[in-house]
Structure formats: C-alpha cells, structure tokens
C-alpha cells in the first residue's frame, strides 16, 4: 500500500542525499581521476595518458615519501592500539559511576579541541626553548638546551596524541557491552588472564578495534598539520606534497594523481582491514 503522498515524500527525502553524494562526493572524485590522467602538452592543451603516475614512480622522492607516510601511519595505528587498549579497558571495566563518566569526559575534551591547538601544545613542550628542555636543564640532566622537535619521534608523538581518542572511544563502547560474568566464567573454567584476553575480550572488542584502527590510520595518513609543524624540513609527508603540487606549483595534474594514489592506499588498507577481521563498513563505522 503505497499512497501517492508517501511516494512523493520518499522522493523528497531521496533528493537531498542524492544531491549531496553525487555533487560533492562522486562527481568530484571522477573529476579528480580525469584530471589525474591528463597530460599537459601545451598551454591549455591536454592529452589522456598516465604520465603523471609514471612521474610518481620514476621520482624516488615521490614514492619514498608515499611509502614513508604509509609506514609511519601504520606504526602510529599500532602504537595507538597498544597504548589505548589498556586505557579503554580500565574505563570500561574497572571503573564505575561517576569516576567512569569523568574519565570518559577527560578523554573526550582533547578530541573536541582543534588539532592545531593540540599540535601547538606539543611545540611548546618539545622545542629547544620549551618546557621539557628547560626541565631537563634545571634537573641537571643535560648541560645545554635540547631540541626535541623536528624529528620523526616528535611526529609520532603528535600523531598518536591526535588520534588516540578515536581509538579509545570505540574501544570503550564495545568493551562496555561485554558482560563481566563472561570474564568471571572464564576464570571459573580455569582460564588465565592471557587466554581470557585472547578468547573472550579481544574477539568481543573486534568491531571497536577495527573501527578505531581504520579511523586512526586514515587520520594519520591524511594528516597535514602534525608532520608539517612537528617534523623537520626533511620529514616529508604525502599530504604536504599534494598541497605543494596544488597550491605552490599549480601542477593540478600531478597533484590529482598523488591524491588518487593516497585515496587508493587508504581504501585498500580499509578494505583489507575489514576483510581480515571479517567486519563490514556498516557495522564498524555506522555506529555514532
């Protein structure tokens, strides 16, 4: 029983989402791909070809930066998971009532604050005239000022800091839904802490682990601020290269190819992560 008014209502609801997805997501990405396979042969003259992709593979600086960005993002994801899991477990399983709400809120506050502010905080802490350097000097551990900024470790600290909340929050949500009695039953049946972790807790938390890892990896890969501000002149990041091609060099064709490669990599990793853990995008990302 579909009346005419409800059919009209259906199309009225369908219009905004289609308009949004087609005009702002699908067509722009198709356009990006078309530009990425255009070669400039003269002023305002283009030919179709894969020269931009060839340029990427022929220039070691480009693909090395790409690989470096990918490896550091994976490392940041793993570190975030290892550091964040015990915290999420503590909040979800070992605290109750008001303490739990307070700790959860404390986790959320940096998550709401602008990424720029968070990165700026790390700059104040780590730079030569910064807080840590002064602290070490006043404790007599070092003689002169130490520069802790502008290296890969600083980037890693910043990446983990920026994204750890996106790991902790979904983990807390999934661990919260695990019934304590299942863990108790595991002990009653003679399980050890490790075997219970491996066979009860981690399988139950899997959707949270996957969604956390996907978001953290994505955010690290697409991060621009942290590597630019905390990394030195030599520590290049792929998004920085995309920015250079687009805004500084005005070479949109090469920039689009870079963008597409980054998109390809992030989709590939997300897809592989979902397949390996047997999760679906709808189940992991579709929870608000």
């Amino acid at each position: 029983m579909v009346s005419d008014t409800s059919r009209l209502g259906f199309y009225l609801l369908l219009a905004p989402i289609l308009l949004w997805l087609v005009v702002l997501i699908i067509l722009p990405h198709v356009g990006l791909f078309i530009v990425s396979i255009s070669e400039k042969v003269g002023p305002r003259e283009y030919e179709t070809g894969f020269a931009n992709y060839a340029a990427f593979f022929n220039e070691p600086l480009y693909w090395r930066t790409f690989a470096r960005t990918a490896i550091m993002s994976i490392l940041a994801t793993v570190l975030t998971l290892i550091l964040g899991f015990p915290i999420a477990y503590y909040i979800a399983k070992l605290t109750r009532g008001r303490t739990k709400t307070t700790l959860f809120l404390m986790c959320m506050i940096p998550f709401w604050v602008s990424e720029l502010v968070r990165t700026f905080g790390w700059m104040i802490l780590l730079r030569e005239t910064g807080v840590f350097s002064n602290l070490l000097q006043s404790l007599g551990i070092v003689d002169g000022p130490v520069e802790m900024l502008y290296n890969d470790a600083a980037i890693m600290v910043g990446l983990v800091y920026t994204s750890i909340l996106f790991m902790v929050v979904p983990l807390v949500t999934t661990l919260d839904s695990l019934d304590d009695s299942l863990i108790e039953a595991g002990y009653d049946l003679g399980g050890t802490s490790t075997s219970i972790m491996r066979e009860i807790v981690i399988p139950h938390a899997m959707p949270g682990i996957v969604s956390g890892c996907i978001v953290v990896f994505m955010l690290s890969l697409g991060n621009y601020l942290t590597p630019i501000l905390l990394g030195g002149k030599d520590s290049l990041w792929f998004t920085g290269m995309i920015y250079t091609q687009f805004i500084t060099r005005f070479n949109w064709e090469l920039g689009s190819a870079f963008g597409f490669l980054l998109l390809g990599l992030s989709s590939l990793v997300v897809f592989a992560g979902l397949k390996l853990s047997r999760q679906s995008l709808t189940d992991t990302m579709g929870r608000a």
Partner: protein
Amino acid sequence: MIPTVPQPAFAKWCYRAYVTAFFIYLALPLTVVCVFAFNNSVFPSLPWEGFTLAWFFGTEAPFIGVFHERAIVRSIGTSAFVATWVSGLAVFVGTCNAFLFVRHDFRGKAFLYVLMLLPLIIPGVILGISILVFSSSIANALEDATGLWFDGLRPGLLLVILGQFSFITTFATLVISARLQKFDPSLEEAALNLGASKWGAIRQITLPFLLPAIVASAVVSVLMSFENFNTTLMLVGSDSPLTIAMFDKLKQGSTPVLNAVSLLLIMVSALLGVLSLLFQGRKA
C-alpha cells in the same frame, strides 16, 4: 581483570600508574597552551616572566591581545559564518537521511548507506582537492561558454562550506538516525488515528522526540566545522577561518596571542562538547 577477580597488588599499582601517566600525557599539551597565555613574555616559552592578561586585552605592541588583533577577530567571525551554514545544512540533510534510512525500504538502500558512510574514510585533503578540481572545471567551462566570471566556484567561503558539509553530514545522519531508531512508531499512528495529518504528526510528535539528537548533531557540526583544517586548507580563498588564520600566524613564529586564542577555543569546545553529550544523553 575485573573488580570481582582478585589481582596481585603490584600488577594493580602498575596498571594505575600507567593510567595516571596516560591522563597526564593527555592533559599536558593543553595545560601548557593555557598557562603560557598568561606569560608576560613575547614568546610562549620558559622562563616564566610573570602573570599578565595583556595577551587578551593588551592594546600596545608587542602586547596586542586577542580582542584587538584584527586578523584573529575577523577570522572568528568567518568561522562562525561558515559553521552556521555547515551546521544548518548538515542537520537538514542529516534529518532527511535519517527518515529515509529508518522509515523507508527501497532497492539499493544498503548501497546508498555505504555510499553515505564513505566521507568518513576519505582523507580530508582529498575531499578538499576533489571539490576544488571539480568546481574549477565547472567554472572554466562556464566562463568559456559565457565569457562571464564565476567567482563563487573559485576557492572561497562557498567552497569551504560545501567541503565541510560534504563529510559533516555523515556524522549528523548517524546521530539523528540512532535516535529515530528508538522512536516508537505507534505514537505517530495514534496521532494519525486522532485525526492528525501525516506531516502534522511528524511535526508534533516525531520532531520533538528527535530534538535532542538534532541539537546535539548541530553542536557537533559547529565544533567540527570550527576545528576543521585539512579540507578547509585546500578550499580557502582570501577570507580565512580561525584555524587557517592561526596556522598562518604560527608559520610566521608563535606569540602568546596564539595561546590566548587557543585557551578561548579550548573553553568553548569543552563547553559545546559537554552540551552535545547532555543533549544526546537526555532520555525520551
């Protein structure tokens, strides 16, 4: 492992120490940002030169406070303008999407749902450049065809709004759908039985029920719009929103004015964040 299972005291203390260290790590950068907003020095670093409010209210160089720094004040206005539009659009489309996905069954629904989730896994920079490339190619085509200029399709506030809207809508949709799923349709049927029109029932019964989620998603959208950097960076024209203006200043060298702005941002974000949680958590 859990409170009912006894653990060795040493392990317990190690665990607690780790959790404490983690929360210190979490709080430290934000704390130093706030503290140095009050340092009476032209550089946000040690040594401590004494307490001052000049970075908020100062009028004389080099101590020009936030409220007298024209570029910053203007960029806050720009951010507020962008955030209002983004939030309004995202909540409107998000509410429509929620009704579409919760109330209707149609061919391709699952596919459309996955498509709706995609902006979550596309890096912000890519969203930015794809919209930049697409709108520029439309502008070029239109200009070639008509000989007129289409400035709205060039980097500027319109593109910033569209770029932020393109992924914030997904969040709004998820928050509002989650609440709509909990709605009991029999309430609406009762209203229809009592003689309400379909639209009247939705307006009188369903929308008030959804209101907490709508407000929460509006607040979250404003927050996300204010703090967005990557997408905005690619689409920004001559009017910069706050984060871009701060980034430009930071590249020139940091002054405690940035700390003062950051302190205000932290306070406002924390307030809005708590507000959105309160609205989301409110019982029906």
